């Protein structure tokens, strides 16, 4: 199979006609059914009928993560709840998570998109798709799962963790495609070595890896150690989940499925649209979604677009691998972490100074998040037991809030570096 859906190879002209038609009907519907968008469009005097060409997209207002938070949980849904068949959620910047909803048709569309990604990574209905992304509110596990089923491949719903068991099943069931975060793929390779599992005992041929930033150097390492073809998959729950874009066999950027999303690159400071090739913030507009459609959603991810034709035959534009963030969000083992969330938890613990720092490192290919907290005279006890209780309390509260395990390190006052102006909250030591 070369591609899953003929849409992927549509002629550009026809694709753009389709985009325009879908954009119009999306804006129409949002204006009619979502008060938030009606207000936003009214504010700038924009009528749905004003969209004459795709260039008019840039006149539309942006949507941000804060807008989702302000309309928590279901305020931006464009259909009544009886039509929503699935909810997913990801972490917000503070407090409330970002909640997304899917109609039955959305679930089918999403599964179709993920099926496309599996085929782009060399998969077919013959494959056994080992899904080691987390199942649950996180879109990773269920997203890949439904995509594998849509393709007609065999989905193996492993979820994360228990690496030795993952490997045993990989051997026994003959998994051929591994879906997980790139750092977990490396961890699997390591544990495989420790267990003495020879490479020819596993049938893996490809990896669909994403949900965290990685590099070409890491790809080389994964491909060598696991002897697979490693493909970067991109997505975010606000837009749909995994399956917004994927690397084809060329591995020169990720094809954005433009029949469903219109990507733009903007200057994060001015909001101005930047020409192809230029680096800036990625922005997506949903044009084929019912439950939650966002106009010009600012991802805070930094990338650029490549409009040159791809030898693979897909006509959809390619985005460069994510080069960073415009905000301070961290991705730790696939989980989004905002320093502001940690701060919110720490502020609730009496006696903890508002000085903290997050140190992320990659130890044996697993991300380790350390929360460094200064000990004030108010909480300092000369009994180690009490200090350990304090550590445990901070750890438990931060972990339950973030959904990712952390190590807490108590520090002396004023030992965390103060900066002039914006505090340095994050030290990222991962070499990716």
């Amino acid at each position, binding site marked *: 199979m070369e591609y899953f859906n003929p849409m992927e190879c549509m002629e550009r002209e026809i694709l753009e006609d389709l985009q325009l038609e879908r954009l119009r009907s999306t804006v129409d519907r949002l204006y009619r059914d979502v008060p938030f968008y009606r207000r936003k469009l009214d504010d700038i005097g924009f009528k749905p009928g004003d969209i004459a060409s795709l260039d008019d997209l840039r006149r539309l207002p942006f949507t941000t993560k804060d807008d989702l938070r302000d309309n928590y949980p279901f305020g931006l849904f464009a259909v009544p709840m009886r039509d929503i068949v699935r909810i997913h959620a990801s972490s917000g910047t503070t407090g409330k998570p970002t909640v997304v909803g899917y109609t039955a048709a959305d679930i089918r569309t999403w599964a179709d998109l993920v099926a496309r990604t599996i085929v782009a990574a060399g998969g077919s209905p013959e494959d056994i798709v080992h899904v080691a992304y987390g199942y649950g509110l996180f879109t990773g596990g269920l997203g890949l799962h439904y995509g594998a089923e849509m393709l007609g491949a065999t989905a193996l719903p492993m979820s994360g963790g228990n690496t030795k068991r993952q490997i045993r099943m990989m051997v026994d069931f003959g998994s051929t495609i591994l879906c997980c975060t790139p750092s977990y793929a490396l961890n699997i390779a390591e544990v495989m070595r420790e267990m003495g599992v020879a490479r020819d005992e596993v049938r893996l041929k490809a990896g669909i890896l994403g949900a965290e930033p990685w590099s070409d150097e890491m790809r080389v390492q994964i491909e060598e150690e696991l002897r697979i073809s490693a493909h970067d998959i991109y997505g975010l729950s606000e837009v749909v989940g995994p399956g917004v874009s994927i690397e084809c066999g060329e591995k020169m950027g990720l094809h954005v499925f433009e029949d469903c999303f219109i990507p733009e690159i903007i200057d994060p400071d001015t909001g101005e649209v930047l020409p192809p090739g230029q680096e800036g913030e990625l922005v997506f507009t949903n044009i084929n979604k019912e439950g939650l459609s966002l106009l010009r959603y600012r991802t805070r991810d930094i990338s650029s677009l490549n409009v040159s034709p791809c030898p693979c035959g897909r006509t959809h534009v390619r985005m460069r691998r994510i080069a960073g963030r415009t905000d301070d969000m961290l991705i730790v083992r696939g989980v989004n972490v905002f320093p502001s969330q940690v701060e919110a938890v720490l502020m609730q613990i009496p006696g903890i100074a508002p000085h903290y720092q997050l140190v992320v490192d990659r130890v044996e290919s697993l991300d380790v998040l350390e929360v460094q907290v200064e000990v004030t*005279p108010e909480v300092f006890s*000369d*009994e*180690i037991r009490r*200090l*350990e209780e304090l550590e445990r309390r901070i750890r438990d509260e931060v972990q339950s809030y973030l959904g990712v395990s952390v190590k807490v390190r108590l520090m002396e006052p004023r*030992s965390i570096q103060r900066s002039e102006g914006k505090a340095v909250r994050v030290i990222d030591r991962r070499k990716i």
Partner: protein
Amino acid sequence: MKVRQVSVFLENKSGRLYEACRCLAEAEVNIRALAIAETADYGVLRLIVNDPDKAIRVMTENAFTVSETEVIAVEVPDRPGGLAAVLAPLYDANVNIEYLYCFVEKSGESAVVVFRVEQIEQAIRALQGSGFTVMREEEVYRI
């Protein structure tokens, strides 16, 4: 009967203990006894000094996290069984010991045991009831 112990939070990094001690040295504070409790990431330095107020002041000025803890100091004969004998009345009185450390007096005839206990009043009564000398603050600072 209660002795003021100065406790200092120390991160586990090289030179921190030296800096803490140098800071006391410059203020001419004399350390009478010292113990360190440690974990992987940090330690707690426990000090009996000749001038606790001054010690707390200079340490705080130098950005150390300092706290004051009440402990009791008991003189015990410096011979086998000395410590066991002093623990017996505490055990009988159900007193919980958080930690203790010992040092030997200059004369070399008796040792001093410093206790941190949960029930300090109860401990003092139990020790005195069994004939032990619970040292007064000034005595300890002067050792």
